[in-house]
Structure formats: structure tokens, C-alpha cells
């Protein structure tokens, strides 16, 4: 690539992540002071600080919690006659057997597929940035945008449990209680969102062996 397409970082400019204003990088001092955007006051940095490390940390925590989130019951239904524990998957199966397969698919997608794909996609983005891959940048950037957009929808099951718990306390007839899986599941959603937020998509475009990297 020719320097005809310079990035802000290569010219010593910083774009504010928050309001977009371009600033000149302050002359490098002995210690790096966190510069603030002259317009909106946000911290200025060329790339999100410790992007890769932070993203991996959140990723690992999310993977660890992914198991209890799917194995522990997220709710427990007790009625006069029986008591039943539901994990996320058994909730989906219940909906499916019940004949409401569009809902079953929706919940399956939001609660099972999305978190799993998110973890896989994040690992792929992080590894390809770390090995400095310069192919498929467009696709990877698009993948990142999709991750950011779709992550929040996994919260669906948490809200379903919330409403069920609040509504179904019909004295002796039936009672629904939230289970420990709900805590783990909520944590997975929050952690994967944090991991995606820590990742800096500009790193995808930084790796280019043919181009000298001028920023430190």
C-alpha cells in the first residue's frame, strides 16, 4: 500500500473515539499522559488501550461462565403436582414440543447460537490481529460490526425469566423461581459485550507487512 492512504495514526493525529474530532498528538513525553479531547473531554488514544489483552481477559471469563450458564437451571417451576427445573436448552425444547417452533427458534438463536458464535468470532478476530493477517479485512470489519449489533439480543432469556418470576406466584397453584444459571448467563452476555467493546477494529487494518508502522 502506498502512503497515499495514510491513517490518522501514521500522521500523528488522534481521532476522538467519542466525538470524532481530530487532534494532533502531543509531543511524546517520558511518561504517557492521558490526553483529553479538546472538544468533548474524552480520553484520547490512537487505539483502544490494551485492546487485545482486555478482550482476551473478558473472553476467557465468558468461556468459563458459558458452561454453568448452559448446564445450571435458569428457572424452577413448582406447582401443586410437580416441580421442574429448566435450563436454557430445555426451555427451547419445551417451546418446540409445545408447537410454538418460531419462538423456539428465536430463543434458541438468541440464547444458544449467538453467544457461541460471538465467542468463536471474537477469538477469530483476536487471533488474526495477533498474527498480523492482512487478508479479509473487509469481511473481518463487517464481522466485528455484526458482533457489536447482535450481542445485546442474548439478554432475551434473562428478561423472559424476570417476567415469569414476577407473574407466576399464584399462591399454592404455581410458583417460578430464578435459578443460578440465570446469574451465569447474564454474566456471559455482559462479558461478551465488554470483550467486543474492548476490541479495536482499527487493529485489523494496522497489520500490513508491506507498510512501515510508524506509531509506537
Amino acid at each position, binding site marked *: 500500500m502506498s502512503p497515499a492512504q495514510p*491513517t490518522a495514526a501514521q500522521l500523528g493525529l488522534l481521532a476522538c473515539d467519542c466525538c470524532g474530532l481530530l487532534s494532533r498528538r502531543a509531543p511524546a513525553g517520558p511518561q504517557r499522559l492521558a490526553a483529553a479531547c479538546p472538544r468533548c473531554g474524552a480520553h484520547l488514544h490512537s487505539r483502544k488501550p490494551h485492546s487485545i489483552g482486555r478482550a482476551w481477559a473478558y473472553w476467557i471469563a465468558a468461556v468459563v461462565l458459558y458452561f454453568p450458564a448452559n448446564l445450571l437451571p435458569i428457572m424452577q417451576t413448582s406447582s401443586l403436582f410437580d416441580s421442574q427445573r429448566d435450563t436454557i436448552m430445555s426451555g427451547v425444547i419445551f417451546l418446540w414440543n409445545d408447537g410454538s417452533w418460531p419462538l423456539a427458534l428465536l430463543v434458541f438463536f438468541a440464547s444458544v447460537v449467538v453467544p457461541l458464535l460471538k465467542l468463536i468470532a471474537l477469538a477469530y478476530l483476536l487471533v488474526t490481529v495477533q498474527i498480523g493477517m492482512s487478508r479479509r479485512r473487509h469481511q473481518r470489519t463487517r464481522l466485528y460490526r455484526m458482533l457489536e449489533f447482535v450481542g445485546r439480543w442474548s439478554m432475551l432469556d434473562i428478561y423472559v425469566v424476570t417476567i*415469569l418470576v414476577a407473574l407466576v406466584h399464584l399462591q399454592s397453584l404455581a410458583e417460578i423461581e430464578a435459578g443460578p444459571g440465570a446469574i451465569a448467563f447474564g454474566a456471559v452476555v455482559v462479558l461478551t459485550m465488554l470483550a467486543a467493546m474492548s476490541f479495536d477494529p482499527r487493529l485489523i487494518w494496522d497489520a500490513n507487512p508491506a507498510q512501515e508502522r510508524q506509531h509506537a
Partner: protein
Amino acid sequence: MDNPRVSTADPHPLIACHDCDLLQRAPAPQIGTSVCCRRCGARLYRMTRDGLDRCLAMTLAAGVLFIVANAFPIVTLELQGVRAATTLFGAVRALYAQHMELVAALVFFTTILVPALELLAMSWMLGPLKFGRVAPGLSLGYRWVRSARPWGMIEVFMLGVLVSLAKLSHLASVEPGVALWSFGALVMLLAAAASSFEPHELWARVDALAAEADPQPMRIA
């Protein structure tokens, strides 16, 4: 002091793509067009005629609906003469009462606190701006809105309510409450407000007001 800000008076100011950091010149502003990154295709900003005004109007309307949505029960459940109803906050309390403090906090944060503060911050920024004033703490409010936005999940909550209603409808008779309709309308309004909010326009207006109040280059003593 040397101002580190790169000049904004340029008719074709430089902008850097937030997704790939490519520097590019902004094209001449044209109402109704989006400016996208030359390299990665990210949308940099959009030019609208009255985006901020529309955003303010929808934010205020959303504020009213938000109050209604939280004040009335979302659904009422009836089974063999026993009735149960819940508001959103009531649902949070029910979780809390079951020692699910973390989940209760998560639900409270994502469906009540963040959306409420976001609506307040948006009206605080856009209201005075409508009358040609820059609200004190505008930049703080702006930064707050930017970092809080992903955590407001009213639309996901709305879908969650619908799924739980479908689950319950086999067991008992469910009756949608006023708040359910308000939530539905609120989701639409919030989406419309978010899509008409253009940071580029906000800061262009703030910069213009600041330049009007303080024409700095002429102040050499």
C-alpha cells in the same frame, strides 16, 4: 497555549474512520446523504435537515411513554380466580426477593436506569441547543450517552415480554396492560430518536455557537 485541535474551519475537513483509521477529506455537505469510509465502508456520518430537532421531539415523547410504561402493570395473569400483575420495577423486586440480586441489578440497570438517564441526558443536551445555548456539562452528557447506549436494552426486554406471554398463554389467561402498549411505542420512538441523532451535527452546532461567543483569533493583546 497551542491548540492541538486540527482546524475545523476547513470546508473539507479531515476525518478519520472510526473503524479503520483512514484519513479522508469530508465531501461537500449534502442534505440527505451519508458519508461512508472509502476503505472499509463504515458510515462516518449523515447529513440531515433537522435531525437534532426530530431527535429532541422523539426523546421528549419517549420520556412521557417511559413514565407510563413504568407506572402501569405490563401484564395481568389469571388462573382459577387468582390474579397476578406486575410492573417492570415489580419484576425487579421479585427477583431481588429471591436472592437474585445480581440478575435484579442487571435488569434494573439495562431496562430502567440506563434508558432513564439516557433520555434525561439527551433532553439536557438538545433542549438548550434548540434555543441557541450550550447546556453546561454538555460534553459530559455526550460522553455518558455514548458509553451508556449499548447497555439500554428496552427493545430486547420487549421481545422477552412477548416470549414469556406466549409461554404463559397456555397455562393461564393473560391480559396485556397499558404498559405493554407503551413499551411497544417506546421501542419505536427510541429507535427513531437514536437513528436521527447525528453526533456530527451536534458538534457542528456546538462549535458554531462557541465560535460566535468567542472569536478567539482576534484576541492578541
